[in-house]
């Protein structure tokens, strides 16, 4: 215990007598720690903001893609079966295509989706004006259309357009509703001038050339779980129903926003790992720098080692002295590195607007642990070289 305390005092003394050299040695560690902490902090901050956006999306939503409907495609009438599953609340079909909308003499490319009332509830879309598509629209194959906020803004430059006629692919529709603007991630995915018509209407016009997929059944299903906690159960049930229906798990793919968030997270984690790995290599290089200097220091202080041994220092004490010195250099470098990292992130936050990059404390712990390991690892060889010296050889060294 006392030995260790004395070793620390000796280490500080020796570093103090060689400040410049110690600082240059530390530089490798400092750069390594700063790159590790700053890079990983940036990535994890970005990750957490992305994942929080994803989880703000309707996260009781399950998306089913029918990839191979075979001879028995899912029809509108089948949706009732899914809806009757105990953990499922809503089911919406969704067949999309692109079309050309005409307002006056101007043409616009729009994304047209045939769906039902449940779709808007599952997606969590709010109304700006008018109403959603209703079951009666589907029953009557009505030529009714709901515009996304972006579509209304692009086509009309205003949103109070309920009641107007809109020509899409030469068919006249009545605008019954406009969706509210939302800055969530989902709406930015769906921002491209989307318009929504009754699924049955889409099915009818498809026979005259539009989206051949409709006649071959529903291509995409959105399933709304009864509540957020039931989402896994709803997904399992839906999947079981699909498997029973198609008898082939390759015929469809099913995912929830949870899986999306998971995927996103694993992508950013890989990214963090990659950057962290690169930074860790620079730390390693810093460690080799320490070994280098410690080896020089041992050679330089050979005579001192001899003197210490002649007055009774054991091999262990000498080992400890040099090991602790390497460790102290490493940890001091680490402390300075963490300090600089905090400053770096503060500067980034100051320069980049609306950014709240925060230091990831777990990576600081990793950096400290790694530096300690490096200090001990790369300090060990020079220290044991010093410890193993013969007293008389060390004493006679010129």
């Amino acid at each position, binding site marked *: 215990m006392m030995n260790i305390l004395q070793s620390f005092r000796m280490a500080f003394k*020796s570093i103090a007598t060689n400040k410049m050299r110690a600082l240059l040695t530390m530089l490798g560690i400092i750069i390594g720690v700063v790159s590790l902490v700053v890079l990983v902090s940036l990535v994890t901050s970005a990750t957490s903001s992305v994942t929080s956006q994803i989880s703000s999306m309707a996260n009781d939503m399950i998306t089913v893609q029918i990839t191979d409907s075979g001879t028995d495609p899912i029809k509108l009438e089948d949706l009732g079966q899914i809806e009757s599953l105990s953990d499922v609340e809503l089911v919406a079909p969704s067949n999309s295509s692109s079309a050309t909308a005409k307002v006056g003499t101007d043409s616009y490319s729009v994304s047209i989706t045939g769906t039902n009332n449940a779709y808007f509830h599952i997606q969590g879309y709010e109304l700006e004006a008018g109403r959603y598509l209703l079951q009666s629209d589907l029953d009557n194959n009505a030529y009714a259309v709901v515009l996304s906020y972006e579509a209304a803004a692009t086509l009309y430059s205003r949103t109070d357009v309920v009641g107007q006629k809109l020509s899409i692919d030469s068919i006249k529709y009545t605008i019954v509703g406009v969706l509210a603007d939302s800055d969530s991630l989902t709406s930015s995915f769906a921002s491209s001038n989307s318009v929504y018509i009754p699924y049955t209407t889409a099915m009818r016009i498809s026979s005259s050339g539009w989206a051949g997929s409709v006649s071959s059944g529903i291509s995409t299903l959105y399933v709304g779980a009864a509540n957020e906690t039931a989402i896994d159960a709803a997904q399992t049930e839906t999947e079981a129903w699909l498997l029973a229906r198609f008898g082939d798990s390759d015929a469809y793919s099913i995912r929830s926003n949870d899986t999306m968030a998971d995927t996103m997270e694993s992508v950013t984690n890989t990214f963090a790992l990659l950057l962290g790995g690169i930074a860790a290599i620079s730390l390693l290089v810093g460690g080799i720098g320490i070994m280098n200097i410690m080896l020089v220091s041992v050679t330089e202080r050979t005579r*001192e080692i001899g003197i210490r041994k*002649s*007055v*009774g220092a*054991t091999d*262990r004490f000498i080992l400890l002295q040099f090991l602790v010195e390497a460790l102290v250099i490493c940890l001091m470098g680490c402390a300075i590195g963490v300090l600089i990292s905090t400053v770096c992130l503060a500067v980034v936050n100051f320069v980049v607007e609306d950014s709240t990059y925060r230091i990831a404390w777990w990576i600081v712990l990793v950096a400290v642990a790694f530096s300690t390991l490096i200090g001990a690892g790369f300090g060990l060889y020079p220290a044991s070289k010093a410890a193993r010296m*013969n*007293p*008389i050889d060390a004493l006679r060294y010129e």
Partner: protein
Amino acid sequence: MLELVEVYKLYQLGDEVIHALDNVSLSIDDGEFVSIVGPSGSGKSTLMHILGCLDTATYGTYYLGGQPVQSYSRSELALIRNLQIGFVFQSFNLIGRMTLEENIEMPLIYRGLPASERRERVEQALNRVGLWERRKHTPNSVSGGQQQRAAIARALVTEPTLILGDEPTGNLDSKTGTQIMELLYDLNAEGRTIVLITHDDSIARQAPRRVRIMDGRIIEDDRSGPGKVALSPVAQEAIETVGATLPLVRPALTGALI
């Protein structure tokens, strides 16, 4: 008691084998003052290194306190150097970046003494060699004589039974050399064994016993030197309190190791 029995020390130098020590047998009683004299290259430094457990013999046995030294491990030898032996070197061998005080304290740190006891002992040692005022100086900022006195303080701060001097006056003028010699006589008068290595006959002749060495062999062992040296008052007092001879105590090796 120190005893060398048929000790050889061989060095390989290219194809040639150098006999630094060639069949040396020597026994030194506790409390003796022995000078070992010989020209440079005669093997006297090698002899001292072996006596001080800094080096080991190629052949032969060195008994220290009746125990063969080769039976000790490296850390046991470090402990023996710490507890029983004090070195005084020609080149002083103080650590330059430490103050005189810290240099003197160093062996006590390795012994594991608490700070308060270290301070007390260092103060005594400093006063004994008259360097109390200079304790905060580094070796480079004091004279050679003062450096050597600091080195002696470092040697005696551990209260060793054996003090080995390797040309301790070699780098000093004759006046300061005399002062150093007086210090050594004082230490001998306290009952400590002193072994003094020198090439200077006039210094060697001051010792009660003179061993002459040449080409690694002892060629003369002369006990006709001055029987007793004049004691300083300090030494006189020390003898009365400590007793004329301090037996070599084999250290309690187990447990005391660091």
